[in-house]
């Protein structure tokens, strides 16, 4: 009888070219699930403290999720974990696409790669057979060409192999390089493309025939059937009544000042029709999007009549087909074709909100053709669109302030809104050409090289560029940016995610989601901290099972725990799973502490905190209470707010004996 997971992992040593398998005991899955959890357990134990992230001792793990392929939906995420060369601590990134089920069908829950090859290689896993192949003829190619060449070499006309690869940015060890799957889905963050590049690993190509067996397949199917029905019902009601539904259902469910669940229904509609790019216009205006390298405000610097040019219908007209990740009923992605304008494109993934904001609102560019072209270049070149947008905005500010000159930029006039210059700069960054070499490792390192006070315009936390959600709009994002083991990330926890998920539907201990006032309460870290911590823990479960965060926040309550119990045969309560989540989070955090990272090291650049506060716009006069928030978050997890070290009794409760040994002897 199966348990949803495969019970073993693959090891590939690129130095010795040895490939082996390791069985994982059942109790490890019960304690850590799969995905980030299982990877954290293995990487904590086997990456030597202080290891060079770009050296042979770093281990990069390609993980599937525990629920992937079991018959559940929204559970097609694959993940990559390693020591991050960008933050020099725990690194992970998360991606949709089609790789996750392929890993499990190859009979493993994860592929762990260590060592360093002396020449470019790619890994082929064909069911039970795995081998390293020469990648000399692929090295230097972009991510689209790489997939095509590998398929040609493997005779894979039916595209059965699922491929993850790096582009030139990863090869050139850009610390903001990502890993591409299916020509444009990205495990972009933490700079893990550079880890692949350092190992001279161009790609992995995986297919298999293994059966993924849940413990109780009928029960899993039944839960899925009911959940799909609830999604259909919600769609039907929205079609019938549109937004009027919110008013009626809202009145039925509202008690006192309770925040209602229905934001998820609206979010699902936006995702289904537009994808995340649907919100670019309104986000620039309402204060969610950072504008002008975090120093401006949409209403003045990038108003709605400009931001709407790179949002919703302005892009939707180029979508020729919808794109959905494995097991997704929403399908928020899209494939674009652009026949008109200066930059024709075909078979190009639709830009996400993050990309449009990072290159648009942040740099004051509203040329939709340029942005679609740059999105395509990013997907081909293999670089993180959030970070590269952040570093371009930083370079523009340096230029506008005279810290960078035309001589430094190789003749580029890096002025706000000069999209043509941005496009040329992007090319230079991907290829580490001239000024691009200075910028290719992110804003923190670029400002260290440029100097002249530029560090105040380098917006990051712990070395990683912040995602495109201003924490002064939703302070929950700020807590995640500064407190989570991977800083600067938006797909973990926030007030928005609490509401979209309806976090108070899942746990007895949750506080009813209260409406917070837009000015005063919103900035008080105590107001939502309990649910912020629950949201953070929930994310550990979501990543352990390979679920999409959007799937958790699209209206009807997602039966994640019901699926887990049916797939594994466990009989755990949501509160039991919270202990698992706390273990995973504390272990990822401990990885950082062992590397010498202190809580203050993840402090956001002052401008993002509102230090000094902005003088106009929705965040005028707003300064976040970040220190207080970090202290409350750390205390909730039992971590010392000064040193970051988890308390011994917390580690004992969680059974993290390796960590106890490291920190307490």
């Amino acid at each position, binding site marked *: 009888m199966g348990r949803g997971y495969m019970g073993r992992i693959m090891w590939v040593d690129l130095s010795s070219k040895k490939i082996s398998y390791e069985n994982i005991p059942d109790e490890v899955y019960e304690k850590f699930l799969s995905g980030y959890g299982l990877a954290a357990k293995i990487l904590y134990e086997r990456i030597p403290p202080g290891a060079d992230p770009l050296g042979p001792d770093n281990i990069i793990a390609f993980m599937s999720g525990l629920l992937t392929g079991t018959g559940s939906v929204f559970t097609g995420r694959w993940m990559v974990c390693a020591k991050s060369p960008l933050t020099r601590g725990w690194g992970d990134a998360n991606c949709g696409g089609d790789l996750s089920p392929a890993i499990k069908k190859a009979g493993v829950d994860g592929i762990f790669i260590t060592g360093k090859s002396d020449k470019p290689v790619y890994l082929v896993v064909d069911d039970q057979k795995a081998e390293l192949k020469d990648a000399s003829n692929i090295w230097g190619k972009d991510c689209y060409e790489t997939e095509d060449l590998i398929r040609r070499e493997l005779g894979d006309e039916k595209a059965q192999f699922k491929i993850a690869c790096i582009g030139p940015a990863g090869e050139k060890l850009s610390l903001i390089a990502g890993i591409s799957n299916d020509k444009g889905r990205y495990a972009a963050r933490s700079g893990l493309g550079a880890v692949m590049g350092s190992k001279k690993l161009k790609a992995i190509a995986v297919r298999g025939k293994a059966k993924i067996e849940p413990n109780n397949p009928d029960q899993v199917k039944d839960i899925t059937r009911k959940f799909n029905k609830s999604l259909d019902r919600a769609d039907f009601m*929205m*079609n019938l009544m*549109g*937004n*009027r539904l*919110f*008013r009626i259902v*809202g009145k039925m469910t509202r008690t006192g000042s309770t*925040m*209602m*669940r*229905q*934001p998820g*229904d*609206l*979010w699902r*509609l*936006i995702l289904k*029709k*537009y994808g*995340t790019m*649907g*919100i670019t*216009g*309104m*986000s620039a*205006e*309402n*204060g*969610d999007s950072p504008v002008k390298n975090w120093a401006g405000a949409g*209403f003045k610097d990038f*108003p*709605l*009549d400009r931001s*709407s040019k790179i*949002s*919703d*219908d302005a892009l939707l007209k180029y979508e020729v087909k919808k794109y959905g990740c494995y097991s997704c009923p929403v399908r928020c992605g899209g494939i674009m074709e652009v026949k008109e304008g200066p930059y024709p494109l075909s078979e190009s993934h639709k830009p*996400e*909100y*993050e990309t449009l904001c990072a290159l648009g609102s942040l740099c004051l560019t509203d040329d939709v053709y340029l942005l679609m072209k740059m999105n395509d270049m990013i997907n081909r070149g293999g670089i993180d669109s959030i970070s590269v947008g952040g570093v371009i905005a930083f370079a523009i500010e340096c230029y506008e302030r005279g810290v960078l000159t035309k001589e430094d930029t190789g003749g580029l006039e890096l002025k706000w809104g000069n999209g043509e210059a941005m496009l040329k700069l992007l090319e230079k960054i991907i290829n580490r050409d001239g000024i691009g070499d200075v910028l290719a490792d992110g804003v923190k390192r670029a400002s260290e090289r440029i100097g002249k006070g530029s560090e105040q315009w380098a917006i990051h936390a712990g070395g990683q560029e912040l995602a*495109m*959600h201003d924490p002064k*709009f*939703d302070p929950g*994002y700020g807590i995640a940016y500064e407190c989570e083991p991977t800083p600067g990330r938006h797909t973990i926890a926030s007030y*928005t*995610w609490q*509401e*979209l998920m309806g976090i108070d539907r899942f746990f007895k201990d949750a506080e009813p989601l209260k409406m917070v*006032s*837009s*000015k005063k309460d919103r900035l008080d870290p105590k107001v939502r901290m309990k649910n912020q911590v629950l949201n953070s823990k929930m994310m550990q479960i979501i990543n352990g099972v390979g679920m999409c965060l*959007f799937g958790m*926040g699209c209206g009807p309550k997602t039966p994640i725990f019901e699926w887990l119990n049916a797939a594994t045969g466990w009989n755990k309560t949501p509160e039991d799973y919270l202990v698992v989540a706390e273990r995973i989070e504390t272990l990822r955090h401990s990885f950082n502490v062992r590397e010498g990272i202190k809580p203050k090291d993840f402090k956001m650049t002052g401008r993002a905190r509102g230090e000094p506060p902005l003088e*106009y*716009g*929705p*965040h*005028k006069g707003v300064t976040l209470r970040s220190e207080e928030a970090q202290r409350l978050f750390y205390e909730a997890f039992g971590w010392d707010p000064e040193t970051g070290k988890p308390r011994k009794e917390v580690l004992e409760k969680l059974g993290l004996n390796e960590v106890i040994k490291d920190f307490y002897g």
Partner: protein
Amino acid sequence: MAKVRIKIAGMIDRKMLNRVFDEEVKDGIRVKELFEHLDRTQTKGQNYFKRFLKLPSPPVILINGEQMELKEALNSQVKDGDEIALLMPMAGG
């Protein structure tokens, strides 16, 4: 009369509505009355402004770029040259 710039952005009736336009209204009317006026003159009976105010998460209202508490914003008096934005509060993606 007061000339004001109106911005409305968000999803309504399965369509993203991002509109910017100018409107002349009686000087000194309250924002709530302005929205009622706009529903009569601009939304062809669709009552977008009224419906935005009833979204599950309360909308963001900016007056001259500054965020205000909902009640406070609705009771504010409109004056010539004001810019009033009614926006969906979504912050995901």
